[in-house]
């Protein structure tokens, strides 16, 4: 076991609150968990040295930080600063049918509900998920009442000052027939360390539109997870945009716990410098007639490394499942590296499942064509890279977000080219 984990466990033992039984359980499991090494399948390509030597510390003094504004989004802001929920940044009045509160402030019946669902969607195998269970200080519970459509998106931001450590956790529940859009956004400054986990319970016929932006770069360790539980006829559409940092790891788990659920996941990551980004996307089809469509695209430049693991697991009862995973990667430099592993594990016969993975470089002919039209080589490269990613941006349902992210990505490509 690493020193880091030992100190984390010691710190967690000092926390006593409404989550006590869950925290004790997590600590129990952590004590039995081996510190991942290169031989641990889930961490095979992602060494944990940056965690072991992170200088990040918990900062308890109040720091004034607020999330960058996104034009035309008019989101309900749910802000964590260095791991602490900042209620001052939350709107005074929330739309009817939406409640956002600290778990500790809930009435006893609601608190009991929240306690029961806590950590039931996020799988126990994730060592940092357990760390988050044990250490997240302010657990926020978001719930949408039955049949309610919340027009304004909720934006969950986790902000970190330099050298800060934070563990944030949000539980989101969508009652039957409700609709909600959630944006998860981590903005960290140098030398920080964060774990940010959100669990979503998507009720019968409910719809969730989800975005996760991991755009912090530099010497940060960012580990997180978005975990979804889909009931009958539930629909989710998730978009993930990631830039790498010293170590960025994101796990998404989608569980088809009801029939006729529909999940879409579009993920793109663009890495530069010595960055590392590791995405583990797991889909569990536990019930029949589910549908999953995943598109993952990745561009790696310079000395960066991308890891992707896309697992689709069809259980014995999940007949008539349709599941598709498409993973495309562009390798721009001879020092960069791509490790991808799409997995299918299938126990039902009447299903249609497919996955594809490609690794290649920019089409030389396309590059040549643009150059013959007078576009400089570097501009042509940016155009082609952008085109590769833009196909997924075009699929983002929220236009304001797509407009916001496009120039950020273009800027990223321009920076890659300068080197």
């Amino acid at each position, binding site marked *: 076991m690493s020193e880091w984990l030992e100190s984390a466990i010691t710190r967690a033992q000092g926390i006593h609150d409404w989550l006590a039984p869950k925290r004790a359980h997590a600590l129990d499991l952590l004590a039995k968990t081996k510190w991942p090494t290169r031989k641990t399948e889930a961490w095979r390509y992602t060494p944990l040295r940056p965690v072991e030597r992170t200088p990040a510390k918990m900062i308890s003094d109040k720091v004034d930080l607020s999330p960058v504004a996104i034009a035309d989004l008019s989101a309900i802001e749910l802000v964590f600063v260095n791991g602490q929920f900042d209620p001052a940044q939350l709107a005074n009045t929330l739309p009817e049918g939406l409640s956002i509160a600290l778990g500790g402030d809930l009435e006893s019946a609601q608190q009991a509900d929240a306690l029961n669902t806590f950590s039931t969607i996020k799988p126990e195998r994730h060592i940092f998920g357990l760390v988050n269970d044990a250490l997240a200080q302010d657990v926020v519970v978001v719930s949408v009442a039955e049949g309610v459509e919340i027009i304004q998106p909720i934006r969950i931001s986790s902000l970190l000052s330099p050298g800060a450590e934070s563990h944030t956790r949000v539980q989101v529940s969508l009652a039957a027939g409700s609709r909600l859009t959630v944006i998860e956004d981590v903005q960290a400054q140098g030398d920080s360390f964060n774990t940010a986990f959100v669990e979503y319970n998507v009720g019968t016929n409910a719809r969730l539109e989800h975005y996760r932006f991991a755009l912090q770069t530099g010497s940060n360790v960012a580990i997180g997870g978005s975990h979804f539980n889909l009931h009958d006829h539930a629909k989710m559409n998730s978009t993930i945009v990631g830039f790498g940092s010293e170590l960025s790891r994101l796990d998404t788990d989608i569980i088809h716990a009801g029939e006729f659920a529909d999940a879409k996941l579009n993920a793109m990551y663009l890495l530069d410098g010595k960055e590392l980004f590791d995405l583990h996307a797991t889909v569990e089809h536990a019930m029949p007639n589910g549908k999953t469509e995943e598109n993952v695209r990745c561009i790696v430049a310079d000395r960066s490394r991308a890891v992707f693991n896309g697992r689709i697991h069809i259980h014995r009862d999940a007949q008539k499942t349709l599941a598709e995973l498409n993973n495309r990667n562009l390798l721009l430099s001879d020092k960069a590296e791509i490790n991808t592993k799409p997995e299918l594990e299938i126990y*039902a016969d009447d299903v*249609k499942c497919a996955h594809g993975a490609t690794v290649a470089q920019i089409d030389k002919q396309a590059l040549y064509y643009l150059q013959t039209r007078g576009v400089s080589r570097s501009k042509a490269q940016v155009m082609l890279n952008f085109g590769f990613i833009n196909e997924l941006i075009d699929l983002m349902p929220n236009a304001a977000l797509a407009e916001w992210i496009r120039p950020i990505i273009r800027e990223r490509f321009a920076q890659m080219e300068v080197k």
Partner: protein
Amino acid sequence: MTEQIDKALAREYEAGFVSDVESETFEPGLNEDVIRRISGMKGEPEWMLEWRLGAFREWLEMEEPEWALVDYPKIDFQSISYYSAPKSMKDKPKSLDEVDPELLRTYEKLGIPLIEQQMLAGIAVDAVFDSVSVVTTFREKLEEAGVIFCPISEAVHKYPDLVKKYIGSVVPKKDNYYAALNCAVFTDGSFVYIPKGTRCPMELSTYFRINEQNTGQFERTLIVADEGSHVSYLEGCTAPQRDENQLHAAVVELVALDNAEIKYSTVQNWYPGDENGKGGIYNFVTKRGICHTNAKISWTQVETGSSVTWKYPSCILKGDNSVGEFYSVALTRGRQQADTGTKMIHLGKNTKSTIISKGISAGRSNNSYRGLVRMNPGAEGARNFTQCDSLLIGDQCGAHTFPYVESRNPSAIVEHEATTSKVSDEQMFLCRQRGLDPEKAVSMIVNGFCKEVFKELPMEFAVEAGKLLEISLEGSVG
């Protein structure tokens, strides 16, 4: 439908007879003395014994691999006998007439064309019966061409320089748990050397068979194709029906020097255990080839037997422009478990690899493809294409795909695709409409599904493989 499946499941293992041949078998157990005895029985030189003991010491430090998607009780390595030789082998037969007729009958039942058919088929067979090579035919003819094809125990004596140079050069002693065990206790196997610029005049073939109860078979095959040579090698495996599980941990090493080509084909039909998963062979095999400049290695396998299969025939594409191929059909039924696939390690420039894998699961079996394609920084312009298709027959089985793709060269192109489906109702309907009974229809559809692989097999093998599949699928209509 269930009736038909039941019928299919009840089908008996056709090669499951036990030959009554007197044999000399070691007491179960594994220690340095056993290894010394094996080495002593073979009259091996000192270096070979040292090599074995070195591997054994490494093995003691190693842990059994647990990453494969297979589930079986822990193997007690002390309860296995590590040497078994038919007694009548003390005086080695000089010709086929001297071979124990009981042995010949065994082969006959297996349908190995050892005598006349042999001539017609033009196949030289080095038949391994338990642990000692029984007879090697057509040796003279091969010698004329300068080809060496003999038991590896003999090669150790006759061609020590070649063996010393190449053994363990592709699969190092401590490569993995079972390879290390094999290095320590291997009893026999085949050695092939094709001299420079020679095209081997016939297809070489070995038939392995585990006969003695409680024995493990640890054979070792080493094929060296010198510059510009060509060889096609066939391997078939069968084992008798027994209640207990038997271990088969083989190592196959292929060396294709510049411009050489090796084609290695396997039809594996070890006893798969009964319908409740009792008995059957644990087939834990390490197969790997190294390709030098412009060389080519092609693996083709048809896997229908064994209760547990753990096998990844691989290519190290070291030389520029070298080519690796892997064509596989794996069929599991009953409670069989197969975890098989390949590794293509691209080191040289413009190296190419193709992987075609077809998995068919029926009954309560589990069938996994596990593969690795690695493009190293030096693999300029390298290319890989992988296609893995799985077919499920029945709702109690599983089909899985675990491909690893690692690329560190921007000019390399890797493509992987996998699909999983069942025999579609439309296909069945069409065939039935044309008057085919369901069984024939399934067999035809499966045959079509596997066609890409079968066409890579030498003709005699392709026929055998097709038949094997047909028998295995009998009645599994779903």
